[in-house]
């Protein structure tokens, strides 16, 4: 039987993987994917916290509702984000962060 600590550890690793991906990878698509991993890390931890109910001793469903909202919002973000990346690709034929150098002072 996995404990709360196991879930939190998995969630922490997911968050770190996501953050590392955002910092280190150079392709915007991969960066975007890493951002989704970060949101899912939060989802996992929220459900674990909610299931084990540390404070009240029983399940608290607020967090599970929040998870549904996060999933929905992430989908909306992907819809808009991919549209932006596609129009960027049409204009520049690239999705690499190094090529975004128009705005400098």
């Amino acid at each position, binding site marked *: 039987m996995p404990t709360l600590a196991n879930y939190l550890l998995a969630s922490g690793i997911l968050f770190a993987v996501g953050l590392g991906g955002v910092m280190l990878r150079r392709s915007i698509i991969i960066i975007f994917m890493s951002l989704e991993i970060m949101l899912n890390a939060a989802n996992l931890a929220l459900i674990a916290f909610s299931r084990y109910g540390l404070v009240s001793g029983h399940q608290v469903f607020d967090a599970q509702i929040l998870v549904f909202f996060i999933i929905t919002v992430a989908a909306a973000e992907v819809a808009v984000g991919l549209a932006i990346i596609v129009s*960027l690709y049409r204009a520049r034929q690239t999705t690499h962060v190094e090529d975004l150098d128009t705005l400098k002072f």
Partner: protein
Amino acid sequence: MNTTSLEFAVVGLGILLLLAEAFIDRTNKDYLAYLGAAGLAIILVLSFLPLQGPATGSPDSAFLTSDILSVFFTRFLLVSTIVVLLMTPGYKPVLARYLPAEKEGAGVGEFTILPLFVCAGLMWMVSAIDFIMIFVALELATITLYVLSTYLRQNMASLEAGTKFLILGALSTGFFVYGITWIFGVTGTTNIVSLPQSISLLPESSTLPLLFGVALILVALSFKIGAFPFQFWVPDVYQGAPTPVTAYLSVASKAAGFVVLLRLLVALETVPVLAHKLYAVVTLLAGVTLIFGNLAAIPQTNMKRLLGYSSVAHAGYLLMGVASLGSLMAIPAIGLYFAAYLVMTLLSFVVLMVVAEATGGEEISRFNGLSQRSPLLAGAMLLAMASLAGIPFTAGFVGKFLIFEVALKQGHFGLVAIGCITVAAGFYYYFKVARAMYWQQATEETPIPVSMTIKLLIALLGAGILALGIYPGPVLAALR
């Protein structure tokens, strides 16, 4: 009628205008901006009626509040959206240049209507007292702003600005959600108001994960308000985004972020273990933001970038106010600073938009000899710059004065010293613009045409700067 119906009215207005845009066959879309502004003005008037807040015990009351903070900032957001909507007809030529021309006027309508949905999101955000509500409202506003800032999809600068905004915005969302997760994990609640009570029941050992959660939320909010350590997107996005969107980002979205920060700090203030550490962190952030924003603004040659760094600097002054929350005058001072910030920033963006359209660029050198080409625009810009720098008898001066006063009363002598030095730096870069307008020769002599709407906006915002500078009483009274 209920205060929460104001937000629904804004969403309804937006949907009505979208339908009108689809079914009315006119290539000139200006009427959408005027209808939208008129509708928001009516909603603004309605907000002054004696409205009921959500009744205690009703499902709404767990998520939304209608305290003075939310009422003041709801009106603030409505006013800034009205100004931005009235700016959009003047931005049409740029939209026509950088949008694929399938049909004349295609895409202009949505550009005018989308700010309404941002406005509704931000209005919910300033009234929200539950992290779930704050998260959803924040995302409604932010995702719409992604679309708006990338709107010129054949312009490299706008695309790049939008992509950077998207990536960093989504990153800050990740931090925000993970922060909420840990706060929920420790306290078992997502409600900000019941947070202090839940924390008081906790054992000492749970402070560390709680601090971790609060720190993540602070980082995420620093993105929203454009302060250190998440300020680096500001200059790029401000420069690349369409000018009305930049104006909107710098005023409305910053204000909503500050309201959430205030609510969180007011709730955690009652928890002694946390309050101490949090104030230390906010003080540090205020100092670094002030120094960074003002120093980086000095060498700028692009006007929009300059205003971007200036907005980081102003976030620093506002954080000074937030760090002094212990004083009763802190929230009125922050509110007044925001009112001043609204009129002076929007005025400078209105003038910038007209000048950029007439001269073909946004560099400060394009303002050369503006006083000969259009004394009205030059005068308005001078007034805005004087107020941003903080000359007496302008709104900016009163705002800074009150913030410095509460900071001194709370014993933040270091911050006030940094503040005074950075104000001096501010004089240098704001008056660079004034010098270009009044002491440099114009390359062209032709006068710049100014439309009636823009004249009206300049008159109203200019009057606002002087009125707040001379008689700030009503705004302060509204927040006490």
